[in-house]
């Protein structure tokens, strides 16, 4: 009973301080907004006027209609007509164009076949903006003057994705970005919350009261769990409103998966707080952890493309597992039940860091 009272007292104090700490408060809301805005701008799918060239080897009525329709979308501006696919590739490689539209000689015949694409878009895939734009183009269908549009045909284009094997878009980035933001803020906030008390001398008073280590840690952590959930909500909403990022799975799964990551990050923050002597050190340690998380988790670079050693390191990082979980839940509609290994990894990470933190945190100054 007294224990609950003490936890509640710490919790209340923490929330009071937080509401008066404009900087931290700003970061809670500001970081997700800025990150979403930054990444959202970079991955804006609504791109127009890409430089394009057409190689129409078919040169038929149908193929000319296709080229005109592509131009009419305003996604591309056809700035050159060339004769062969090779010439298109050369232009693409030299950076003269962003998109190449290749229409093979047998285009009319290909249109009749369901298993082959009729034409190709050659895309500079090193730029995700262009890649997503090309996807938009790929939804074009062939217009016929006489007959009604053929609905049988699934894909008119086959997108040849040069330089970037993994397709990326807002849809792909936003869920993972949630993990990045949670990693950045949750670890830092908890680490700093305790180190700040040590730096300001509050801890010397606090550990001289009947407050127990576990009570202190719970009281310190719980407000940040809520803050984490607020951030998750903010990111999901912004993703939906700005980029139409879907939630194919259940909302409950999104929150449960996020909670697992929040728990892992908060425990790590606690552990850092027992190691760092100053807020600056806590920030350095957080950054030291944050960098590999961002680079190796599969958020920036496709996981499969990384060297084995990097993959092993990545398996230790909570963000790696979260990126898998959240992409599965939000994009593929997977259920958490099918993600037991990744969830288990997050729980294991939490258990280990939390144990270390509690063991390391003495109610003493030495």
């Amino acid at each position, binding site marked *: 009973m007294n224990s609950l009272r003490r936890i509640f007292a710490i919790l209340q*104090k923490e929330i009071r301080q937080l509401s008066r*700490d404009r900087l931290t408060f700003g970061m809670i809301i500001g970081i997700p907004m800025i990150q979403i805005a930054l990444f959202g701008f970079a991955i804006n799918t609504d791109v127009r006027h890409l430089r394009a060239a057409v190689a129409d080897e078919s040169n038929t009525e149908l193929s000319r209609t296709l080229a005109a329709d592509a131009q009419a979308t305003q996604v591309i501006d056809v700035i050159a007509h060339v004769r062969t696919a090779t010439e298109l590739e050369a232009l693409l490689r030299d950076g003269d164009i962003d998109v190449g539209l290749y229409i093979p000689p047998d285009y009319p015949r290909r249109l009749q076949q369901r298993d082959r694409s009729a034409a190709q878009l050659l895309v500079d895939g090193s730029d995700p903006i262009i890649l997503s734009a090309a996807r938009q183009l790929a939804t074009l269908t062939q217009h016929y003057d006489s007959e009604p549009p053929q609905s049988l045909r699934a894909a008119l284009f086959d997108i040849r994705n040069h330089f970037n094997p993994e397709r990326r878009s807002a849809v792909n980035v936003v869920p993972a970005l949630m993990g990045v933001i949670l990693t950045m803020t949750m670890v830092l906030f908890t680490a700093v919350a305790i180190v700040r008390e040590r730096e300001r001398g*509050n801890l*010397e008073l606090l550990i*001289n*009261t*009947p407050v127990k280590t576990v009570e202190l840690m719970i009281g310190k952590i719980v407000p940040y769990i809520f803050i984490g959930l607020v951030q998750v909500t903010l990111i999901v909403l912004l993703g939906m409103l700005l980029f139409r990022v879907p939630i194919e799975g259940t909302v409950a799964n999104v929150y449960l998966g996020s909670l697992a990551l929040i728990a892992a990050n908060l425990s790590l923050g606690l552990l850092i707080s027992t190691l760092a002597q100053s807020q600056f050190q806590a920030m350095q340690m957080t950054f030291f952890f944050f960098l590999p998380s961002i680079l190796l988790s599969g958020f920036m670079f496709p996981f499969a493309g990384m060297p084995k050693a990097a993959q092993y390191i990545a398996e230790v990082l909570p963000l790696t597992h979260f990126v898998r979980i959240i992409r599965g839940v939000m994009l593929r509609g997977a259920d958490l039940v099918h993600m037991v290994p990744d969830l288990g990894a997050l729980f294991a990470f939490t258990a280990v860091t939390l144990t270390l933190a509690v063991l390391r945190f003495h109610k003493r100054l030495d």
Partner: protein
Amino acid sequence: MSSGIAIRTHNLTRRFGTLVAVDRVNLTVPRAHIYGFLGPNGSGKSTTIRMLCGLLKPSAGEAEVLGLNIPREAEVLKRKIGYMTQRFSLYEDLSIIENLEFIAEVYSLSRTRRHERIAQQLELFDLKDRIKQRAGTLSGGQKQRLALAAATLHEPELLFLDEPTSAVDPQSRRDFWEFLFQLANHGTTILVSTHYMDEAERCHALAILDRGSMVADGTPKALEANIDAHVIEIERADLHAARQLLLQVPRVLSVTQLGVRLRVLVDHAVDDATGFIKDALRASQPGVDVQLVRASLEDVFVAATQLRNRERAA
């Protein structure tokens, strides 16, 4: 344990790496006493207090506080003690009332008790007009009163005060000590560290610390009476020249100028201290006025630390 002893230590020692911050300190602090720790910065006052609270683990030696073995039973002790840290350690971004309520909750005071105690403390420490003010914006004296109000909110049996008056004006210091005596009269034991001689003189008993060692202890009276030196005052002399000269004399422990006088501490082993000084000054300053005077606590302090230095050098 209701014996008359609040704190007892045996060879209490604390090392930081190779530095011995507290060196084999043997303390006995009676209950309901105001016990002083007198010593310059770095003499180990804070470190000793922290060990007695259970915040630092002793490197060697034993401590028994309120009958509890420290650090083993430190958790039990925490409810019974109050600790006012050297540096202000309440929350600067919380208001006076919020800080006090937080402390009350942490010590699990009942609801009625909490209201009662907080009201009493606000009244007693003259803080009731500004309960909504953030602690960070208070003056030095107000902060100190708030810190003491918080440290005594749960009515501890034993109160540790680490240099409580270092950021406070003289009037506030006097008021502060008035309050300490009230507490002691009601049975609270107080251990207070200071580097002010006038404060040390007000303690029931004190220990003089120097570079980690306890060099003397007892009541101020006893310390002054048992000083290991003769205290001499010199007037009507070329003070500067006399001082230079005396500093060269063996068995002169220290020479301090106080306005128009020189205060000289001479080794106890010298039989006739006034004669000894007169002899030393006869050649250069024959007309000086030399007098044996009563020792002050400051003399005790200087003599104890100087003697220790000499032992070391020898």
